[in-house]
């Protein structure tokens, strides 16, 4: 095994960031979070003030922690918003396809309305729409407030050129939405949301609250306080938590809670004691209990 040691040993490494053990030293030093560790055996838990296990043992993040992790991904790890948004949107589409396969729709073709807000949550929605189209759904997008940034303009163009219609007006009544669509994706507000809901989203959310077809919210049910939730607000059937669930997810009462955004480096998971359960194989989504 000396040849292996030579290859993996310090003499051949240019990157001092590597902590890979020498050959024969056993498993990769970066720990895999085992189910035992996630559900309360205590391994991997730092006992710090940041710890806040939800029902399942997985950590539920405060708004501040969610923002800190996001910042670290961009500034320390040098991920670009483009990259992570692509992976996040793919997760959302995949989770939706698992919970609401096209065959489960009473409408044919399986029509989906995606409502996109003015920030990154909206961007996630645009990526999700595009992947849903590739998965055989018929998405339509409502995107009333668009940021003038190249990233969002690009994502919008990609959807439009793929014949995904952009509604110029939001359906005025919930019954219209129930008539036309088998599912609504709420991509309005995400974990940065604070304060009052501005128009047109106030009216949109009031309409969505009356809708009877299932609603899938990306990351945070829009309008909810990111930590405290909202008993009078939107009650989605599905929540796709990105990276890790936020505290608001503890108030989620719908049928399907999925975790998506499988890109958080293990070192970051450990730093914030995320206690994420392991994703199955190469899946980009994981259903939480």
């Amino acid at each position, binding site marked *: *095994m000396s*040849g*292996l040691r*030579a*290859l*993996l040993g310090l003499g*051949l*490494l*240019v*990157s001092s*960031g*590597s*902590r*890979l053990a020498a*050959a024969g030293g056993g*498993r*990769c*030093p*970066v720990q*895999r979070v085992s189910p035992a560790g996630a559900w309360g055996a205590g391994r991997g838990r730092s006992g710090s003030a940041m710890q806040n296990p939800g029902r399942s043992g997985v950590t539920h993040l405060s708004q501040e922690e969610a923002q800190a992790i996001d910042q670290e991904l961009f500034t*320390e*790890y*040098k*991920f*670009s918003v*483009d*990259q992570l948004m*692509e*992976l996040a949107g793919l997760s959302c*589409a*995949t989770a939706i*396809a*698992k919970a609401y396969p*096209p065959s489960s729709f009473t409408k044919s073709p399986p029509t989906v309305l995606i409502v996109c807000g003015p920030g990154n949550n909206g961007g996630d929605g645009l990526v999700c729409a*595009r*992947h849903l189209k*590739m*998965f*055989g759904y018929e998405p339509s997008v409502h995107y009333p407030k668009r940021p003038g940034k190249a*990233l969002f*303009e*690009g994502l919008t*163009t*990609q959807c439009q*050129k*793929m*014949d995904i219609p952009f509604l110029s007006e939001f359906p005025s009544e919930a019954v219209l939405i129930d008539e036309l669509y088998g599912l609504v994706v709420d991509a309005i507000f995400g974990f940065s949301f604070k304060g009052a809901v501005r128009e047109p989203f106030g009216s949109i959310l009031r309409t969505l609250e009356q809708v009877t077809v299932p609603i899938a919210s990306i990351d945070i049910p829009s309008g909810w306080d990111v930590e405290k939730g909202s008993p009078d607000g939107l009650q989605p059937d599905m929540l796709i938590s990105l990276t890790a669930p936020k505290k608001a997810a503890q108030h989620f009462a719908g049928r399907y809670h999925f975790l998506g955004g*499988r*890109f958080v*480096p*293990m*070192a970051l998971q450990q730093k914030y004691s995320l206690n994420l359960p392991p994703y199955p*194989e*190469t899946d980009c989504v994981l259903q939480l209990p």
Partner: protein
Amino acid sequence: MSCPSTQSGEQIEPLRYLSRVEAEAIEKELLEDYKFGRQQLIEIWGHASAMAVTKVFPLPSLPRKQPTVLVVCGPDQNGAIGLVCARHLRVFEYEPTIFYPKRSLNSLYRDFTTQCEKMDIPFLSYLPTEVQLINDAYNVVIDAILGADAEPGEVKEPYTSILATLKQIRIPIVSLDVPSGWDVETGNSEGISPDVLVSLAAPKQCATRFLGRHHILAGRFLPYDVQKKFELNLPEYPGTECVVSL
């Protein structure tokens, strides 16, 4: 549930193998008309490449005790795709090691390197010429050296030596998009013979000369209009998967 085929007859239209010009035209259309970002495309292809690798070499099937994979990255886009592939393999709990002798100066690609470094993926400072060392250390080698835009006549050092080494190894090679050193249309009878070819988006003409065990199509994002325009006749992807065996 995938793209509706243009023809209504019973016969399935054959898969199209792209010329260099067509491959370039598709990429140009994606970037200029559809406004895909280059980093976005590389992320999509890198992720899909990693999925293809796991499909052919699932973790439990690897012969060595450690799930080690060597990823050899070239200086341009194919190399960047290799970096993203390595990163996703890491997420999937493989143990990739990267050999990236000539790093791209392109700032767009530099961040891909940082992401790999920060995820504790080791970067070799040189590739041993002693082939047995590579055979012993790794389960698979990913060839992400040269892509469809490369001119085989212009392969320079250090890649000529690297390819000469890869020709001799006995562990499987997975080539991303085009076996490095091959002409994108006519192949190369003197070049490497990968076991697995991962064609990105659509296969190139040289894939008809591919003699290895597995040909996988990866990257399920091509808009239907592009598929129709270039008469790609891509097979259906199963479920929500982004790879399909050809």
